[in-house]
């Protein structure tokens, strides 16, 4: 069954059809939530909340890109989740085990085909990028993730964040600039090609 038919069935209350859409898009939704929030539990909560919200608001979907529509919902869910967690104490960026200790090697992020050294390097690089992302203002981060991680175009992002195209361009430029400055602190982790440009500068 194609996506349009699944959406139509889900709109008529078919939860099975909706869950097939969930299985298709859950990685994308979780990625967006995790990159914006930067914390696994909160990202899971936001992703789950986004799908529940999507099911409820399915009648408002007027066609077009279902992916974009979902990303808008998950972005709003992330904002809500961050607002909700603002009152709570700061949690560690790294995943924690049951005893509350940070897990050094986040195996759920690592490509199993890599060597142990490469795995460690990839985890560290990824954590560095995530740390830099987390250091961005939320509005900048959202735009940067939507464009540079999810691969959305400017117009779609403008629709998702409900801002003019110029604002999106501005936020993205500033987000990239800040990211670049932040990543210079982790130069040794960056791939050689990325380091060279910094050495040149």
């Amino acid at each position: 069954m194609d996506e349009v038919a699944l959406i139509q069935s889900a709109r008529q209350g078919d939860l099975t059809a909706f869950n097939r859409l969930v299985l298709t898009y859950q990685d994308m939704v979780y990625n967006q939530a995790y990159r914006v929030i930067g914390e696994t539990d909160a990202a899971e909560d936001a992703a789950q909340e986004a799908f529940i919200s999507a099911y409820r608001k399915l009648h408002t979907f007027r066609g077009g890109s279902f992916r974009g529509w979902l990303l808008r919902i998950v972005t709003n869910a992330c904002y809500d989740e961050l607002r909700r967690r603002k009152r709570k104490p700061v949690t560690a960026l790294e995943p924690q085990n049951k005893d509350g200790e940070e897990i050094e090697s986040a195996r759920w992020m690592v490509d199993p085909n890599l060597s142990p050294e490469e795995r460690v390097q990839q985890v560290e690089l990824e954590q560095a990028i995530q740390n830099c992302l987390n250091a961005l203002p939320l509005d900048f981060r959202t735009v940067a993730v939507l464009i540079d991680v999810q691969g959305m175009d400017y117009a779609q992002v403008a629709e998702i964040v409900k801002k003019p195209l110029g604002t999106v361009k501005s936020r993205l430029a500033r987000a990239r600039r800040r990211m670049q400055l932040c990543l210079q602190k982790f130069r040794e982790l960056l791939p050689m090609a990325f380091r060279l440009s910094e050495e040149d500068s």
Partner: protein
Amino acid sequence: MMTENISRRDWEHLSAYLDNQLSAKESDRLSARLKTDKKLLTAFEELQMARNTMNQLPYLRAPRNFTVTPEMIGARKRKPSRLYPAFRLASVLTSFLFVFIMVGDFFSSGALTMQKDLAAPAMAPAAEVYEEESLEAEPIMGDAQLDVEDGLSEVDSAPEREPYTSAEEGIVSEEIASEKTTEEMVGEPNAAMPESPAPLADTETQERELISTTPMDTTSEVENQTDIAEIDHQGEQTTPILEASGILWLPLLKIIMGAAAVVTTIAAFTLRKRER
């Protein structure tokens, strides 16, 4: 750093140029500047590096399935109505009571019909005997001597009764018997029910036989007949009274229970549907 002097507008143009989001005119102009301006080129490379780094981020797999369950939708959609269990229980109870009343009514009406059917043939001979003897009252009075012998023979067969020696004694015993019968009939409404038409008929026959043995005057006969008629009348009235009371409350109860069952079922169904 070399890129510190780059204007905010240039950063925006560089970023957009990176994503091919500039117009052709703007893009050409910026391309020309990048060829000549080293600071601008360095800024462009920095932005490119930042974007490529973010593109390096692995695409994470969801740690679990985020499929939505009916409980999630139901629990979060709206609070379950507290009225639903109440209406559900009420609909079950009223339906059960309605069926119970219908079944009870069916069996009770069946029993009454059977009793009437049984009572009808038993009552009919008694009425016929009474009518026949009423018509034959005068001829009976004419054959008083014959009846006296029969009546005495029957009275003799009854152990509790003394032999009648005079007409006066006969009249007294007849009155007592008549009163006793009347008292029994009135005191026990069920006696009027069709179970005891035969004893009633026997009593009447005996009374009439006793009457015929005595030289009774017309007044006593009339009184006697009036008493019997009253007894019959009471017996006829008792059953319609019971039926009338049944007619009043039983169908009303059936209607109320039926309506309550339908209303509560619809209410429960509607609440359930709304919750979904």
